[in-house]
């Protein structure tokens, strides 16, 4: 009996020793050939006024970040990678809030917004540290709610493979004379939905050049002065937590609209770099999926 125990122990030790070390000689993943077809995405149309695929549930990927956060550019790169890999299925949003987004003489550009700060406070992201993200805000109240960027893709895939409960269509009218934006979001229920829902309309801006810390660079040259910021949350067109929608229930194929007129776009924003983002979420505090984004849509301003 003792001999057998010895033998088992020796075998176990050998197994652990030889099976438990992965030396990585090249930390970069192999480059995929450019001819790779990738997922069948040609049917997705990003311009939701013409067609938003009613069978697609999109994923709102929120990247909570800051210019003083040296690990954040790696998360921003992950967001770019996801956009390229799942075109039309991802709605990216970078939220600058908390300590890493505060200003000092090296980082004078203020990307913070009251909307972004309310999200950050409510979801406790700054307390958990940056970079961190939320995928459709799934799992609120659970340990896995806040996600490190290395786990974003794993969380995105089941979201964009699921059936959508709602379809959203965004329309806008922009008056170049008085710089005012009128937005209308139409929500259609694709199932028999009977919860409490709210709809939020946001504005984001791309291609902003400013300073960013990047720890991937050698010590002494980690401040990038011409870093390009994408999908920066600029504010809420209606409000951070939105307007109630389908207050009297959302039976299959029911439709409701939310409009917001005369929203003044800040003159310092480049209009043709801006996007309108609309999302509908579970606003029932007693629901197990409280705060979950059930559908999200994005429309580029032209």
């Amino acid at each position: 009996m003792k001999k057998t125990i010895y033998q088992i122990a020796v075998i176990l030790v050998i197994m652990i020793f030889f099976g438990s070390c992965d030396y990585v000689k090249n930390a970069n993943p192999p480059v995929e050939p450019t001819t790779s077809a990738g997922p069948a995405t040609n049917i997705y149309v990003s311009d939701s006024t013409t067609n938003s695929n009613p069978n697609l549930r999109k994923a709102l990927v929120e990247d909570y970040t800051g210019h003083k956060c040296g690990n954040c550019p790696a998360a921003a790169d992950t967001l770019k990678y996801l956009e390229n890999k799942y075109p039309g299925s991802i709605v990216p949003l970078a939220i600058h809030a908390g300590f890493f987004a505060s200003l000092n003489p090296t980082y004078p550009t203020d990307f913070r917004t009251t909307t972004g700060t309310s999200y950050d406070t409510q979801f406790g992201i700054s307390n958990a540290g940056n970079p961190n993200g939320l995928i459709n805000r799934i799992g609120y109240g659970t340990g896995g709610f806040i996600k490190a960027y290395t786990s974003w893709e794993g969380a995105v895939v089941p979201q964009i493979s699921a059936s959508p409960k709602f379809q959203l269509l965004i329309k806008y009218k922009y008056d170049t004379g008085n710089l005012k934006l009128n937005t209308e979001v139409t929500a259609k229920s694709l199932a028999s939905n009977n919860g409490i829902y709210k709809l939020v309309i946001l504005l984001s801006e791309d291609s902003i050049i400013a300073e960013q810390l990047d720890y991937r660079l050698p010590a002494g040259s980690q401040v990038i002065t011409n870093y390009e910021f994408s999908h920066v949350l600029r504010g809420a067109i209606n409000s951070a937590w939105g307007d109630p929608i389908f207050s009297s229930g959302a039976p299959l194929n029911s439709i409701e609209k939310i409009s917001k007129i005369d929203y003044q776009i800040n003159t310092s924003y480049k209009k043709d770099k801006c996007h309108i983002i609309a999302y509908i979420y579970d606003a029932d505090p007693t629901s197990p999926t409280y705060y979950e984004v059930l559908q999200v849509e994005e429309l580029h301003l032209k």
Partner: protein
Amino acid sequence: MSIKSTTRLLFIFSICLFYRTSNAQLKDELGAIHGNFQIDAANYQRDTIIGTPELEGKTFRYNAFGNINYQKGGFSAGVRFESYNPPMLGFLDGYKGSGVPYRFARYQHKDIDITVGNFYEQFGSGITLRAYENRGLLYDNALDGMRVIFTPKKGIVLKGLVGKQRTYFSLSEGVVRGVDGEVNLMELFDSILGKSKTKVILGGSFVSKYQQDQSPTLVLPENVGNSAGRLTIIRGGFNFNAEYAYKINDPSYENKNSYKEGQAIIASTSYGTDGFSIMLSGKMIDNMSFKSNRDMQTPTINLINYQPDFSKFHTYSLMAYYPYATQPNGEVGGTGEIQYKFKKGTLLGGKYGMDITINGSSYYALDTTGLNQSQDSIRHLKYSTNYGNVGEKYYHDFNIEITKKLSKKLKITLMYANQFFNQSLVRFGTPNKEEHPDVSSHIGVLDITWRYKTGSSIRFETQGFFGEYDYKEHKYDANGDKNITSNTGSWISGLIEWTPTTHWSITVADQYNYNNPVEIKRVHYYFGMIGYTNGPTRVSISYGRQREGVFCAGGVCRQVPSSSGLTLSISSSF
């Protein structure tokens, strides 16, 4: 405090008393049941002067736990219930909730010892694996799995384990597997070497973690191994310990995804004889943070190993205002301590003798060079280390403590410390010394205990913290205020603790931030407490302000926000 909160406190109090009286030790031929429990509850109030956090109605908070263990012969089993709804200020919000995070069954018979469920374990100094619990920090990285300890022969102990680590009320993503062997040469070869006065113990451990690679931008090692060898020599009052550890590439949030290997050398030696002891410890640790979830950002969650901390653990609050803990990504340094007892009847010893302790610690960053991205685009090592040199200073603490009994009733303790704290790097992880200047301080303590009759005493304690800050640019902001957020200037404190009987104690204390650079922050942190102790039961009620700060134990720290309010604490065991 609202009536509702008071009622809740009284409710908890009465449940506990009932629980205590109805659970005497149950022991009969069916086995024995033992247990202990503790409840700490607080009702916080908003205090804008000291800047307590906005609690949005969640002003009543508590931490509670209870252990119940059963034992009969070689079999034991137990559970621990824990509840935090929500946890008290200064503890991680992730613990919010209630549950049974710890339950185990263990069987020990002759040479075999098997545990299933949760267990704590340590290999050597802990540099490859240490699963332990610290209630004061709410630190608990218990493993959930299985462990076997096998003693095939006297002098040989083999351990094997596999499991997942506790992460709040769930488990971590990664799996931990480990083996450890220890040979006590003298016990093993007792018959050959005879009864030797010298003990030599050799040990080795290997721990591996598994976590899936889900990164789109990096090839991550899914299996990461950490191995170590150790030696202990003991002879009389002399003791020597050394351990060397090596960890393969382990990119993580903590080390900014560096693929560099990790290494550690830890050694300590001590000698003690009647009335005298000396201890020296040193270490060099490079990139040895080892977590079962590489993406975990909270420093104290999912740690598999423990990087030993030798710096002195201060119990006087102002001595511990800037506490030091091992830097997870690397450091080099050491600690030495001499204790000497002047005997009765000598010049310094006087009638009752005198104790003196001299202690010194100094810790530095490693001397590292960042690698240029063009040279490092394949391996992602991020930096190289020059082991022949040291980098920036992190911390020093030189202190002397003298304890002397002046008469049968009067005892006095005097303590002085000189400390240096590189708070920008150690606490805030940034080289920005404008916002977080280095702090040098002189700290003094006088502690007098007067036992005026048997079982009754009064203790007076006064402390002073005199800080020197290396002010950089931006000393004043646009309004002319000193604009250094983390500088609170110097402090003094006083405390009186009256123990009228062995059951009761009454404490009043105050800390005064008398020269805070911001004048309105020159406030008193008053505090009062009444405690009752009876056998294993202790109840205390306290009221006052808690200063913002960092609390460390055993090299692990937690940030505590400022708070103000009423606290009730009850603990007992059976």
